């Protein structure tokens, strides 16, 4: 069988395995490049489509990536995106009633799913190839002619309201959400959360406008993979989705968030066995080349048990089960999040140890061997993002929607490989700002109150 991926034998760097006693062969770092994909465009509206046949299994997957997201919701209708995509999935279409769609999908074991993230969204279908025409007809009608049935609309609204009421049940989700809210500001699109009042205000007409604003061919990319003939698939997609208008999407401008300076500590007092802690530092925006040294730094500092934080907080001191650090980039700003959970008695000790590790990296103390390991991990595990044709296409489309350069994924490992230890020291020095950060804790305050005093002024917030 023809392989769709290739690994060249080019030596980038030799792995120095850490033990001579166990005779593990030496491997070069993989020089894996995902296959270059050439998109097609629907004639009528220039909608971009990636199509690739894969006959390994008798299934078909199609995904529409849409440039929209929670951050683009109007401030008086926060939550509309979530409601809209729930209704896309369950609210029926002009041709098919929601009950009819549910019955058809569930009977055949097929799926139509929707996802909305902060700055993108998707609608996807999955079915057996023999059912393709039936499911595709439903899928495309949902997308082009959503019905937003009233009964479903009321049900979904109630469900979202109930979910808001339950938003503090899981303390790990609560602490990350609330920390970002205080970091970016409770009214800024990067920080705000849905509220019952804003959900209640949303009307079916608002959903129709949302559809008009974002469902334009300039704002959508389609990927299709599975057991089919590529030309036939192109024709089917083209004939259904040429109806999507080619008007300009209505994506509002987002202001740069005003991130407050100084050390901020917030606590939600809750009688729990563990304290849930988030530390936030300012990160980088999307399309900033510092993402490559920053990726290596994150892997080195907080990318697993072997990382600096994993080692110091978890393995060496037994202070946490869960401890990690990662970065997230958005169009106008970004953040570095350190997350950990520890018993109330060791909150102070755990935070001090985290800050101490960041301070060391900031001062240029980066272990050379562990730095190389972090690079190897990123380079050698890259191939797993492309385990099947479906993920190959989706990776590509999900970067295209953010207007990344066409060769972004192709050059990814090369860029990681070019990162030097000095680049990592530099980015650590820039971003591990030990004078400006935010700490957020959800936990039994009385049991760790005294440990926090030396870290700065504490603000107690009420859970809501």
């Amino acid at each position, binding site marked *: 069988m023809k392989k769709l*991926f290739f690994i060249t034998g080019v030596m980038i760097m030799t792995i120095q395995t850490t033990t001579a006693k166990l005779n593990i062969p030496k491997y070069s770092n993989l020089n894996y490049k995902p296959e270059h994909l050439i998109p097609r465009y629907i004639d009528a509206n220039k909608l971009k489509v990636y199509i690739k046949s894969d006959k390994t299994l008798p299934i078909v997957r199609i995904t529409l990536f849409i440039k929209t997201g929670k951050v683009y919701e109007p401030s008086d209708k926060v939550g509309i995106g979530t409601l809209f995509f729930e209704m896309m999935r369950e609210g029926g279409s002009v041709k098919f009633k929601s009950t009819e769609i549910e019955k058809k999908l569930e009977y055949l074991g097929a799926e139509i799913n929707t996802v909305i993230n902060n700055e993108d969204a998707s609608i996807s279908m999955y079915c057996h190839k023999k059912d393709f025409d039936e499911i595709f007809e439903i899928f495309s009608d949902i997308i082009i002619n959503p019905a937003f049935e009233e009964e479903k609309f009321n049900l979904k609204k109630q*469900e979202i309201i109930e979910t808001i009421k339950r938003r503090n049940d899981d303390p790990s989700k609560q602490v990350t959400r609330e920390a970002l809210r205080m970091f970016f500001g409770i009214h800024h699109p990067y920080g705000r959360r849905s509220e019952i009042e804003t959900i209640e205000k949303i009307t079916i007409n608002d959903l129709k406008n949302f559809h008009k604003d974002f469902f334009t061919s300039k704002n959508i990319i389609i990927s299709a993979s599975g057991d089919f003939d590529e030309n036939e698939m192109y024709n089917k997609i083209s004939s259904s989705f040429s109806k999507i208008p080619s008007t300009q999407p209505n994506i509002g401008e987002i202001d740069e968030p005003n991130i407050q300076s100084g050390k901020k500590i917030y606590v939600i007092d809750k009688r729990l066995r563990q304290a849930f802690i988030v530390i936030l530092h300012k990160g980088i925006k999307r399309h900033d080349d510092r993402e490559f040294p920053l990726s290596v730094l994150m892997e080195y500092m907080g990318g697993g048990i072997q990382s600096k934080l994993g*080692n110091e907080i978890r393995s060496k001191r*037994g202070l946490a089960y869960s401890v990690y650090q990662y970065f997230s980039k958005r169009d106008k700003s970004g953040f570095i999040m350190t997350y950990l959970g520890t018993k109330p008695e060791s909150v102070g000790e755990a935070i001090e140890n985290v800050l101490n590790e960041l301070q060391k990296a900031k001062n240029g103390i980066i272990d050379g061997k562990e730095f190389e390991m972090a690079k190897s991990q990123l380079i050698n595990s890259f191939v797993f993002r492309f385990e099947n044709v479906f993920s190959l296409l989706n990776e590509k489309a999900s970067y295209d929607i953010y207007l990344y350069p066409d060769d972004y994924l192709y050059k990814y490992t090369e860029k990681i490989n070019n990162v030097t230890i000095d680049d990592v020291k530099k980015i650590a020095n820039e971003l591990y700002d030990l004078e400006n950060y935010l700490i957020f804790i959800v936990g039994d305050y009385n049991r760790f109150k005294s440990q926090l005093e030396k870290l700065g002024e504490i603000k107690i917030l009420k859970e809501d």
Partner: protein
Amino acid sequence: MRVVFLTILLLGRVNAMDESKINELKKLNAYVETNPKYPEIVYHKLKNGLKLIIFEKKFAPVASFAMIFKVGNVDNTSGQTGLAHLFEHMAFKGTDKIGTTNWKKEKEILEKIDKIYEELNIEDRKNEKDEEKIKKLKEEILKLENEAEKYQIREEFWKIYNELGQSQMNAFTSTDYTAYIVSLPSDRVESYFIIESDRFKNPALRDFYKERDVVLEELRMNKSDPSRVSWENLLSHAFVAHPYHNPTIGFEDDVSHLTRKDAIDFYNKFYLPNNATLAVVGDVNAIDIIKLAEKYFGDWKEGIIPNQNYTKEPPQNAEKIIKVYFPSKPSLKIGFKNDGINTDDMPALIVASEILANGNTSRLYKKLVEEKKMALYVGSYYSTPGHRYPSLFTIVSAPKGDTTVEDLDNEIMKEIENFPNNPPNEWEIQKVINNYEMNILKDLESNLEFAKTLAYNEQILGNWKFSWDMIEKIKKVKSKDIVDAVKKYLKRNRRTAVYLLEEKK
């Protein structure tokens, strides 16, 4: 009615091995599945009893591995609950070759630490503790730990795998089993065998007491999670005699006093090649895999697996309703005792579970979520927490708006009790079959998921073909069988309901 035929055949054709390869595999004493009903699996059992299942899926240059041992928390004796899970953590702590610069010297120190911990445990469990003595012992331990550290290369096991480019490396312990999983670029599969054979033949169990603290943090995390709290309560109240009663992570007092010696004894008893299955799926050659397994796992000594029959759970004969107060919104979990996965009623019970709560067209969803608007969600599963012993048919839900958990529970019971008056129709049954078949396809999309399924089926359910054979059994289920199963099992005197209620400050 239209019956959906799955083209697993197609998969077989794409990957089909030629005659000469099949002959070569046969020479290695391997079995190649040629029945088109099943995927083209290569099965091989080593002389020491280790079972090997290989599926070649030549697509991306990657391979996934799942090693499953038939040992879980159900196998931990009283006083040692949580040991299976703690051992799983210890299996990442290296060997006599990985993680150390001088094992001989390190081991001597670790053994000294063990002795002091034995003493500390005795003192700590006394009613009147000698705090001064405890403090002194802890100081001694700290000193020795610092000494041991001189010979340790911390987390070297992870470091080696990370450098190789591992993906999805993890392990998990359930009541029934322990699984170790990892994916690697396929040009380095030999490393897997080198590292894993050393891992399971020569574990060092270093940093035991620090890792015990990590597990205690995990336990505290679980105790802060309303869903886990209600699951634990369901199992501990539904089972009174069988060890499904115990939480998988263990009781805090037990975990706090587990020793390295306990873990070594546990390892010697259960971590045997004849108690494990390894599944390999991806861009590999089955011949190479068998040779590597023979080379690296061949000298792993088999042993006698301890008797794994535990106290049978007595008949319940009472309805139990448990109210748990927690700082979260209310939810409901119900468990009805079943008689085990291998009983003739199980296929019908599986279908009942799907008809009741799989998807928006299921009966409970339509009634509770759509019609009555009482519930936020509803779901069910036919066998919680495991499959090795009779377990629970479970239903989970959460009330919405002004509905109380009690109202929700009553409505669910009403629907179940009304089930015999409204026997399942053909559409409902065929839907279940179609979904099962599509789920198998979905599993096949991911190397790791498929490896996990194969290893689990073989090691815990007795045959890697279990999923395919179960579909055949489900196809024979009649409407009356489902009604009979619901009448027999979903009864009040077989059930335990946990009401998680909001604790006000």
